């Protein structure tokens, strides 16, 4: 005995409708339907209502006959599964509402379908029905108007979070409105899309008007002469159709794209997470699906690139967000071919030159920063009254200077290793001595440099005296320490051994000797 698995139709509807959360997906589905109906004008109106949102989509397309209407409402009898995802599923998103009204005119007949409380009924395990009425209209009257009342968004989705910006971005990146098909077709069909949001949603403008084409910012092959010369540079990479052979067949890949700086990329209709939108996109029906930035070799920042790779042999997941057939030979062959194509783009002399101009711009800006910081430094040199070291190397310069200028001061630096614990070996009164060099004496203790092998600590100034006191009070690396400021020495005792370290403050050497004034 053969048994067919049963389908609970109500649950099926519920589940498919639940896959869609975002009212924007209503727009995506409607636009695709309008495009298929060869519409040239589409108007989308969205109003926020207490229960959800009202969405009205109106187009001047070919309209629907009864069979089309059945497809619109039914599950699984669409013949168009080869198009974006599963077209038969898309319109089921409308079921998440209180009322669906479709008015559609075709060949002199207007059909009106009304479905009341579809969501409520589905949730009561009841299959909602629609009422169909017909009326004659003039042949020229064509088009479809769909009104969805109180559309329920997904959990936590607020229709008021929609803005013109967000919709524009979504249209251009995720729907047929951002199609790159026009690059490849001789007579591409065009649609004008108008979106009208209620004031309670976004009152920054009256409406949004856009087309069904994704255009690139104008080319600018030469650098500008401002501070960021490469920022507006932009090159288009002409549409290319490449035949790809794979284990089991042939497919066609259509690639079009641009490379450009930040200012050029900002002219693309995007907002928000700007950076993640660039790179290389796989597309089906010329609608971007998923990024494959790994096809750009790692040493090139994908952010400079925006390429759309269309391949009709890609299969999409039910919600159209990802590619489903990634383990198939066709996907791998296409990806390899794209990688090869992108390797040519990244080696394109124009791109190399663009990177070079960016680099030069950066160096120029750095030189300017250098210049202003040099100006500051020269100013402080001019203004100060005496030589004032501010780092270890300058402390060494102070030593040399003191040897030349101060009678009776004899100290020569014979060896200097900036990274060593004991940085210098100096000749002092004929003897070689191991010397630590610091700008401030306190640094020595802060760095926990050992004291055992040091004969001398040379520094410019003492630093915070309380820090030195704390060292004396708490001990240093397991030993006892005593700093004698009067005689200029440190005594350090650890494990029964005692070290004696001489201190040499250069501030004292440079201090103009004040002669004692006789008080007679």
């Amino acid at each position, binding site marked *: 005995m053969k048994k067919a698995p049963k389908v609970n139709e109500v649950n099926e509807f519920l589940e498919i409708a639940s896959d869609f959360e975002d009212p924007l997906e209503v727009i995506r589905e409607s636009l695709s339907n309008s495009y298929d109906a060869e519409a040239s004008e589409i108007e989308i109106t969205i109003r926020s209502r207490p229960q959800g949102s009202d969405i009205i989509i109106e187009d001047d397309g070919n309209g629907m006959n009864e069979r089309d209407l059945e497809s619109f409402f039914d599950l699984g009898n669409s013949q168009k599964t080869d198009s974006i995802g599963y077209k038969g599923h898309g319109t089921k998103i409308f079921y998440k509402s209180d009322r669906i009204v479709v008015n559609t005119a075709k060949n002199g007949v207007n059909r009106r379908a009304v479905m009341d409380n579809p969501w409520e009924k589905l949730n009561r395990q009841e299959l909602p029905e629609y009422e169909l009425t017909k009326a004659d209209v003039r042949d020229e009257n064509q088009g479809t108007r769909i009104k969805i009342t109180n559309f329920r968004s997904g959990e936590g989705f607020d229709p008021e979070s929609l803005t013109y910006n967000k919709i524009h971005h979504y249209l251009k990146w995720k729907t047929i409105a951002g199609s790159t098909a026009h690059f490849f077709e001789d007579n591409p069909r065009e649609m004008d899309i108008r979106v009208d949001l209620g004031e309670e949603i976004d009152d920054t403008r009256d409406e949004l008007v856009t087309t069904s084409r994704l255009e690139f910012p104008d080319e600018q092959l030469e650098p500008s002469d401002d501070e960021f010369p490469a920022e507006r540079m932009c*090159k288009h*990479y*002409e549409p290319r159709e490449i035949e790809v052979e794979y284990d089991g067949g042939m497919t066609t890949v259509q690639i079009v794209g641009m490379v450009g700086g930040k200012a050029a990329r900002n002219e693309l209709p995007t907002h928000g997470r700007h950076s993640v939108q660039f790179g290389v996109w796989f597309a089906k029906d010329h609608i971007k699906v998923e990024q494959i930035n790994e096809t750009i070799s790692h040493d090139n920042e994908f952010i400079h690139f925006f390429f759309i790779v269309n391949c009709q042999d890609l299969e999409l997941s039910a919600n159209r967000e990802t590619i489903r057939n990634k383990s198939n030979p066709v996907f791998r062959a296409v990806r390899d071919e794209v990688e*090869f194509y992108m*390797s*040519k*783009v990244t*080696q*394109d*002399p*124009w791109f190399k030159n663009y990177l070079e101009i960016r680099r030069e711009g950066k160096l120029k800006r750095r030189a300017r920063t250098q210049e202003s910081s040099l100006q500051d430094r020269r100013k402080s040199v001019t203004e100060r009254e005496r030589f004032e070291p501010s780092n270890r190397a300058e402390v060494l310069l102070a030593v040399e200077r003191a040897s030349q200028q101060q009678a009776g001061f004899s100290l020569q630096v014979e060896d200097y290793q900036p990274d060593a614990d004991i940085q210098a070996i100096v000749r002092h009164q004929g003897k070689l001595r191991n010397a630590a060099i610091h700008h401030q004496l306190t640094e020595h203790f802060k760095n926990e440099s050992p004291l055992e092998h040091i004969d001398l600590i040379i520094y410019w100034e003492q630093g915070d005296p309380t820090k030195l006191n704390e060292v004396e009070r708490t001990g240093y690396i397991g030993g006892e320490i005593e700093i004698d400021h009067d005689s200029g020495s440190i005594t350090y005792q650890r494990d029964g051994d005692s070290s004696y370290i001489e201190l040499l403050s250069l501030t004292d050497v440079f201090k103009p000797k004040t002669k004692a004034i006789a008080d007679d």
Partner: protein
Amino acid sequence: MSQVTRRFDFEVDAVAGDARTGTLRIGSQELATPNLFPVLNFYGGGTERSVFGGGIHRTIKEFMIGADRIGGGDYSEYFDCTMTSVASLTDYNITHERYQSYLDTPIKERELFEPYNGTLFVDSGGFKFLDGGDIDGSDFEVDIDQEKIYEIQKKMGADIILNLDHPIAPDDSHEQRMEKAEKTALNIAEFLDLSSDFDGARYLTLHGYNYSMMDAFLEKITSIVDTREIHEAFDGVALGSLVPKKDNRELLIQAVTDCQEVLQDWGFDDMPLHVLGISSRAVPLLAALGVDSFDASSYLHNAINGKYYKSMMESVPISEVSFENCDCPVCSSELHRQRMRGDAEYQKDIYGAVAVHNLIIQKQELATIRDRIRAEGTAPLREYIESTVARDKQTRQVAHKVVNQSLGGYFQ
């Protein structure tokens, strides 16, 4: 002053970007360029009966002359040119007597090599004799110097000869390189003197990895030999010292690109350019950059390592080959298919056959490259590179670089 009738002539027939195809004429011989000179030891220690021996070299020579031992056949078109080195005489323990008797008759005039009439390029062997090379000529009681080298080149019956040079090594200091350039320059002076009545082609050796090194080399040379004399006396330029860098494609491309620039700046760019010791995957790229000839022993070394060329880009272990996909005369012969499968008394007959197949593959690809250069525009050669070298991930970037640099790029 009477003009000496030069036996040598180089004529460019077609160009595609920087790539060019032409004809080298030496006496009555004509050689299409770009072309590959397979490296071959004509002397391999044996007697005339063993084609002067030489293991795998012997088998290759038997192919070259279509000997009975390899079942006959005409392979001469793949031996339209060959490269050998003076140093090859020293690869075997040759006695003084045998050395003298071997050089009695020029190679191409021997009855044995009668079917062979390719262009014979005889290297000076500087890389083997000099500067730490392991051979000094004492085996056959000959002091190797420029005079001796030239004498051997002449006695072998060379069509193209090189002066005795001192190749540089990757870690040489500037001073060491200049010292070598000076020694080379002294050889050049002597070479030009000795060979003034040589009726083949004389190639000048040039060493360096970039423009400045080659420029400094030429500065040194011309401080000893007059620039004009060099220009008048030499017929071609051979770029050397690249063998240790042969796997560094980036450097190789840079060196050849810079070499062309140096030659241009020195007014030597009307001479054909030969790159010593480089072949296989680099060939299409170097040809695209305008190199006219190459020499290599890779066809043979790969065969010895059991590698069978499927194309210039790809080789497979000989044990995995079915030979049906190759219609070359070697693979078409039942005898050689059997031998390549391992059914042969001597290893040299297995690997010799593979080597000749490998050579044929390279020669056929070069013929394709010449055709592509002759075709209209740069697109045919560009497409060739796009479908061969650029498909290899290791060489992809340099391939694109060459296409961009010398063939007009992909996005014009």
